[in-house]
């Protein structure tokens, strides 16, 4: 039994044990060789991914500037907390809620929303958190896997200017928009109205990416490879608009507490100098984290502040229609500059159509100057009788009053210049009467236009018969230093003749010097030509209109003002236009006219329509 002290056997045992050691080490060595040499290609990228995180870098949204380069809209930093749901540990929910100072269920609901969007893509969990909360989260990121933070920006507006309908607001992209585009991430804001919407693609810029070295806790430690692989975000293009800041600010003041709209433009180019739709909404309350209460309020407000009256409202132009009627009538050969009609104070055709102007002899110039209806009733009567309604409608459409003008804002609406097709549709085929047509002559009844269309129309009188393309953006300056000009072109309205224009212009000048515009729109040093109008409103108080251009001989500004439910255009709309023209040329309101400024600011429309009106179709 006891035989182990055989030295040979002991040697053998030791040799076998040595063999075991060599075998064990060889196996491990082979394994190390496999890992480090054979599988290196597999593990090297794994360690790279492990320690690198690609982060998207938001580009700065393009700025919006006025015609002189003053910044109207820029960006201001806000702080966001982000989440990558796949990496988030739900056990950390109480800690996260605690640090955010929010209810757990509320935070959970937001996380679930983010999960529904994407497990892998990073979403914003909360935007515009206070800086203190942002800092607390930042300090505790190491114990919150999957949670990140980023600095975003929100729109910051010129302090004195609202221009809410021009700029428009941004909102978080909807789920559909988010899923449609790789360029949009959850929580990204995109333009939903105004210039922000129309020029979204230009303003947006290009996402950049950044490789950041991270540790096992997901903490970012700094750029990788000194940022050689990073792509810088491309700032969005800046919009150089045609807006005249001073004019816009005053226009907004003058339209305060009113309902209506105005458009002022350069009649030679169609560049919009000022555009106001009243009431406005406070665009700053929709910037950054949206004030939902306010959003609900402006959506349900019966005064419809979100509605851009300047380009979307349809109102009968009233007597402001008359200068264009005159040009169409001259072109159609219904009368000449020398035709004189005897106006008995009304027009008789089946019934009496009223005229507030004094009875007497009227040529076309005087009819414009004194806003006499007779000439235009007579003109429409002839058109109807001779069956040339469609010819007339085509001529009027050339002024830009019917169709869309293609301004660079969303939701522009057409006006209405009724032709036979339209009347057939409205009343039934051939069911319309002469009365429906005669009323069109003084801009009442079915005819309607927006302030933008009236501004385009009056521009074509001011600029010698050109149809302009209204626009708000003159050029886009990209971060690459490329500049793109919008270069809208004006087109000559072939049939308008200079001598016919001068008659109309002269009539419009007299409106301001002697007629209904003389009280508020007649400036001592600037020759203003214009036309007042009052749109009959079957639903309430009449709307006031005033269209104008100045100076007479070389017009630099054309303007159309609509004041809703404020009675005569001569007392509601004309003073606004007068003040703006004065401001535009002189830079200020002269002390002698300051009372008009005060008058407009404190303007109170009458509470009911007067018994007798400037225009009254019902008078018999």
């Amino acid at each position, binding site marked *: *039994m*006891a*035989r*182990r*002290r055989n030295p040979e*056997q*002991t*040697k053998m*045992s*030791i*040799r*076998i*044990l*040595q063999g075991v*050691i*060599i075998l*064990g*080490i060889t*196996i*491990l*060595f082979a*394994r*190390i*060789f496999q*890992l*480090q*040499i054979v*599988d*290196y290609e*597999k*593990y*090297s990228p*794994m*360690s*790279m991914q*492990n*320690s690198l995180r690609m982060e998207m870098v938001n580009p700065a949204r393009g700025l919006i500037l006025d015609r002189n380069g003053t910044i109207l809209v820029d960006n201001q930093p806000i702080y966001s907390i982000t989440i990558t749901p796949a990496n988030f540990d739900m056990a950390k929910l109480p800690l996260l809620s605690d640090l955010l100072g929010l209810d757990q269920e509320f935070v959970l609901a937001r996380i679930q929303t983010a999960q529904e969007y994407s497990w892998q893509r990073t979403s914003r969990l909360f935007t515009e958190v206070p800086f203190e909360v942002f800092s607390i989260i930042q300090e505790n990121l190491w114990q919150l896997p999957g949670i990140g933070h980023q600095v975003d920006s929100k729109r910051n507006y010129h302090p004195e200017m609202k221009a809410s309908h021009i700029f428009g607001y941004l909102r978080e992209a909807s789920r559909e928009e988010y899923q449609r585009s790789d360029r949009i991430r959850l929580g990204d804001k995109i333009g939903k109205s105004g210039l922000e919407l129309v020029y979204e693609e230009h303003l947006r810029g290009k996402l950049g990416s950044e490789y950041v*070295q*991270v*540790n*096992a*806790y997901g903490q970012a*430690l700094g750029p990788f490879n000194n940022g050689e692989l990073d792509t810088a975000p491309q700032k969005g293009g800046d919009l150089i608009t045609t807006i005249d800041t001073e004019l816009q600010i005053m226009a907004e003041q003058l339209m305060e507490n009113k309902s209506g709209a105005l458009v002022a433009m350069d009649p030679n180019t169609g560049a919009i100098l000022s555009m106001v739709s009243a009431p406005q909404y406070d665009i700053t309350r929709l910037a950054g984290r949206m004030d939902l209460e306010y959003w609900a309020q402006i959506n349900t407000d019966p005064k419809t502040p979100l509605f851009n009256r300047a380009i979307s409202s349809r109102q009968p132009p009233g007597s402001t229609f008359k200068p264009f009627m005159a040009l169409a009538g001259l072109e159609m050969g219904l009368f000449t500059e020398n035709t004189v009609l005897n106006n008995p104070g009304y027009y008789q055709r089946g019934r009496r159509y009223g005229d507030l102007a004094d009875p007497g002899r009227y040529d076309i110039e005087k009819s414009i100057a004194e806003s006499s209806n007779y000439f235009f009733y007579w003109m429409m009567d002839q058109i109807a009788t001779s069956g040339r309604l469609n010819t007339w409608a085509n001529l009027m459409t050339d002024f830009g009053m019917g169709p869309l003008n293609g301004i660079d804002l969303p939701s522009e609406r057409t006006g209405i210049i009724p032709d036979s097709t339209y009347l057939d549709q409205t009343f039934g085929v051939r069911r319309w009467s002469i009365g429906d047509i005669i009323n069109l002559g003084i801009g009442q009844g079915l005819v309607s236009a927006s302030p933008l269309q009236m501004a385009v129309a009056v521009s074509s009188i001011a600029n010698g018969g050109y149809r302009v393309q209204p626009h708000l953006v003159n050029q886009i300056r990209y971060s690459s230093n490329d500049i793109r000009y919008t270069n809208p072109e004006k087109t000559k309205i072939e049939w308008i003749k200079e001598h016919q224009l001068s008659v109309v212009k002269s009539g419009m000048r007299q409106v301001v010097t002697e007629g209904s515009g003389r009280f508020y729109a007649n400036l001592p040093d600037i020759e203003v030509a214009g036309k007042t109008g009052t749109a009959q409103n079957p639903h309430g108080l009449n709307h006031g209109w005033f269209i104008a251009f100045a100076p007479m001989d070389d017009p630099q500004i054309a303007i159309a003002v609509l004041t809703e439910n404020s009675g005569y255009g001569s007392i509601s709309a004309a003073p606004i236009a007068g003040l703006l023209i004065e401001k535009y040329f002189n830079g200020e309101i002269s002390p002698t006219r300051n009372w008009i400024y005060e008058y407009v600011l404190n303007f109170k429309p009458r509470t009911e329509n007067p018994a007798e009106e400037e225009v009254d179709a019902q008078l018999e």
Partner: protein
Amino acid sequence: MRSSNDFNWPVLFAWAALAVFGLTAIYSATQGPVARFLPEYIQNNFMRQSVWIGLSLVTLIAIQFTSPRTFQGVAYLFYGVTIILAIITIFVGIEVGGGRRWLSIFGMRLQVSEFLKFATVLAVANYLTHKRDMSANNIRTALITILLILIPAIIVILQNDTGTALVMIALIPVVLFWSGLPYGVSLIMISPAIIGYFSVIGLIYGVISALIIAVTVLFLQKSRWFSVSALILGLVVIVGTEVGLQHILKPHQKARVEAFVNPSLDPQGAGWNVLQATTAIGSGGLTGKGFTEGTQTQLRFLPEQWTDFIYCVIGEEFGFIGSSILVILYLFLFLRLMSMASSHKHPFAQLVIISVTFLYFTHFIINIGSATAMLPIMGVPLPFVSYGGSAFLANTIMLAVCLNLDLNKRSFSIYS
């Protein structure tokens, strides 16, 4: 009789080289860019380890001036004292990470189990060689030997240090084999480990390994009875492994085993360590990422990277070249020790040196096997390289005793 020429300088050189390797890796793992994620007491590990190495060197030198017979004389006493200390540790030890392994003595934190290993080696060697005719072929002798090892192993398990216990249990077949256990029976002894390992990987591998072992036993022992026993034992191990995996292991242990079989099942959880460790080593490539340049190490993707996962630091930062140098150093050390044993005439010395070598070897295999996903992660340090003062001191003492026995092999070669 004794001269410095008799001293085994190459072994001391290997010891020093491994210590330097360890210090380099500990520096990178605690003082490199990763330091900003680490608490200050861990950043101090480099300094502490240096002090421990110095202390160990002094101890090593001092031991060379001791009589080799002392080790035989104090073997049982040392064994008894360390077992008592280890039991005390279970109750009053400093609790770290769920286990009480450290005892505070004179302000020093000592890991008693590290010394318990050596005490066991001395006691077993003393027992198996105290009479001329001792052989593991005698059932009673074998059982007492097994008991001598199992008692401290169980105490260590009670300290929640399964890795160290495993290293001790692995000593059983080694000492019995040396002491004359027939090859076939030795194979049957270690067969549960082999079959169990393959059963965890896959049932079919477990069955195949059991069959191969049964056939080998038949060949070695020329006994059908042994062979059938081996097969039955193998099948019991396979069933036991499956039952154990399903019902006996605690959830965290089960998760570790599953993570070992398929780390990508739960890459953020139990599989994390395995994946990060292999990624660190694999991404090191041929030349490594450079000292303190390893992203896995420096960005704190590795747990315990100064102790149990220290090889990942070396693999990542020094690549295959660094790994090779490390492995060759160990191989050199182990083979040197084995030839030391083989040339020693005294059985006590021989068995002590072999046991010490296999203690190192088992640590090495389990540590690097865990890091390279060859074995489930068991949490065992790499001798002379991992951070840990008690372990370094205990390992050095063992080596010093081996060197001492070697130095005195001529004077110690005759039975007393």
